[in-house]
């Protein structure tokens, strides 16, 4: 399968790999996918006192496109409010990475991971 240069770049040099302590009150964790389906994404966001996402980290079990999709969104999330983060659409991810049709589900998974992380953080803030 031929990958775009952007996918290859994120795959070869993934940004923001790692984990935060998921029990911290200012950390939101989203884990989506299933091993049997070949993709599991864990996305974490850390919110600053100003309500802005100051850092994001990921770990992904999946194909090159899944790794690239999650790596890309960790870059996009930094500096956004939770509401802005929730507005990130899978189509924007797919377009940025020039994902082929069979790999669109990777971008959907990344969008789901963002939503899950934001939800987790909001539930902690209540």
């Amino acid at each position, binding site marked *: *399968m031929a*990958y775009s240069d952007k996918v290859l770049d994120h*795959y070869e040099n*993934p940004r923001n*790999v790692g*984990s935060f302590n998921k029990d911290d009150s200012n950390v939101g964790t989203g*884990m*989506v*996918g*299933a*091993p*049997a*389906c*070949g*993709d*599991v*994404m*864990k996305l974490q966001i850390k919110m600053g006192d100003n309500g802005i996402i100051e850092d994001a980290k990921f*770990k*992904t*079990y*999946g*194909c*090159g496109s*899944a*790794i690239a999709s999650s790596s890309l969104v960790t870059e996009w999330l930094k500096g956004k409010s939770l509401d802005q983060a929730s507005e990130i659409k899978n189509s924007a991810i797919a377009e940025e990475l020039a994902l082929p049709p069979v790999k669109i*589900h990777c971008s959907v*998974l990344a969008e789901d991971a963002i939503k899950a992380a934001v939800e987790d953080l909001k539930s902690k803030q209540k």
Partner: protein
Amino acid sequence: MKNKLYDMPIYMDYSATTPVDPRVAEKMIPFITEDFGNPASRSHPYGWTAEKAVENARKEIALLVNADPREIVWTSGATESNNLAIKGASNFYSKKGKHIITLATEHKAVIDAVRECERLGYEASYMEPEPNGLLDIEKFKSTIRSDTVLVSVMLVNNEIGVIQDIETIGNICRENNIIFHVDAAQATGKVKIDLEKLPVDLMSFSAHKTYGPKGVGALYVRRKPRIRIEPQMHGGGHERGMRSGTLATHQIVGMGEAFRIAREEMEEENKRIKNLQLKLLKGLTEIEETYVNGDLDKRVPHNLNISFNYVEGESLIMAIKGIAVSSGSACTSASLEPSYVLRALGRSDELAHSSIRFSIGRFTTDSDVEYTIALLKEKIDKLRELSPLWEMFKEGVDLEKVEWAEH
């Protein structure tokens, strides 16, 4: 073997195909240019020369497997041989019954030929092997019916390299008056085959898995007791009417020379390759959470099939571009299912997806193996650093008990 000219990856895919041995290529060339005659031409020396070369090659095939040259039928390859054997024999002997037994882990050329028989009104049993890839003899016995006409079991499996107990299976077939076909495409030059002793009726061979050219193969058809098959290709009545079509002299000459070399060098070569396999096995199983697929003892030295847990198959293939291997992952093949062979062994989808088949051969070197081990160690490490499953495994989470959001 690294092709520096094109900066190609190291070739570790000998079970897919092998390079033609230079000695083989050299023998073939005159039969494309000067000795171009049709071996069926009986009226002039062009034909006689070609016929002599074809018959000499036939003798070489027979010598490697201890058969009579008159028992060898030329085909276009093992796929055709399998089709000719399975359809040809089951049709000829259909009065005996219409039940066929094969293994779920056979090559597609066998499985699909049996499926075609099913379409024509036969019934088929696709037996699941044991988790080590081998056929359980007792289960096999209980699968036999009074109307079982044909059994087809491969000698060496193409994905996991395991060697089935052909002698025992064949004896059971004899006792039950069942035709026994064996796909030996992956076996020639790797295991000793003695058809004087083995109770096998039909056996398929391929040239290109044994350092010969692509596009040529053979089917062994036993003479004593005589086995009959219905031809699948009709025409000029070549090959005693079993397979019509002008013989591809140069290809046949190549196969003959490849099998001659296999007969003469196989013993020494297998020792060398066994050492490479052991080295590869030792190096790769130093990596945590690796699983060897298929029995390690009843296995050819040329094959090592390993699953790397907690890394995903496609990203693994992307990571090891420096070597040419096959993967059990769906992403490397035309279908969407992970390897049906590994699934039949009871491997989970995840482990089937993350499997790599390393197959080595005549031109594999020590340094090829060392490079492969170092590459795998580095890349598996990197991918596991990225893997949330690895992180959970290391934290002691039981992944079986996690409720995943299936999508």
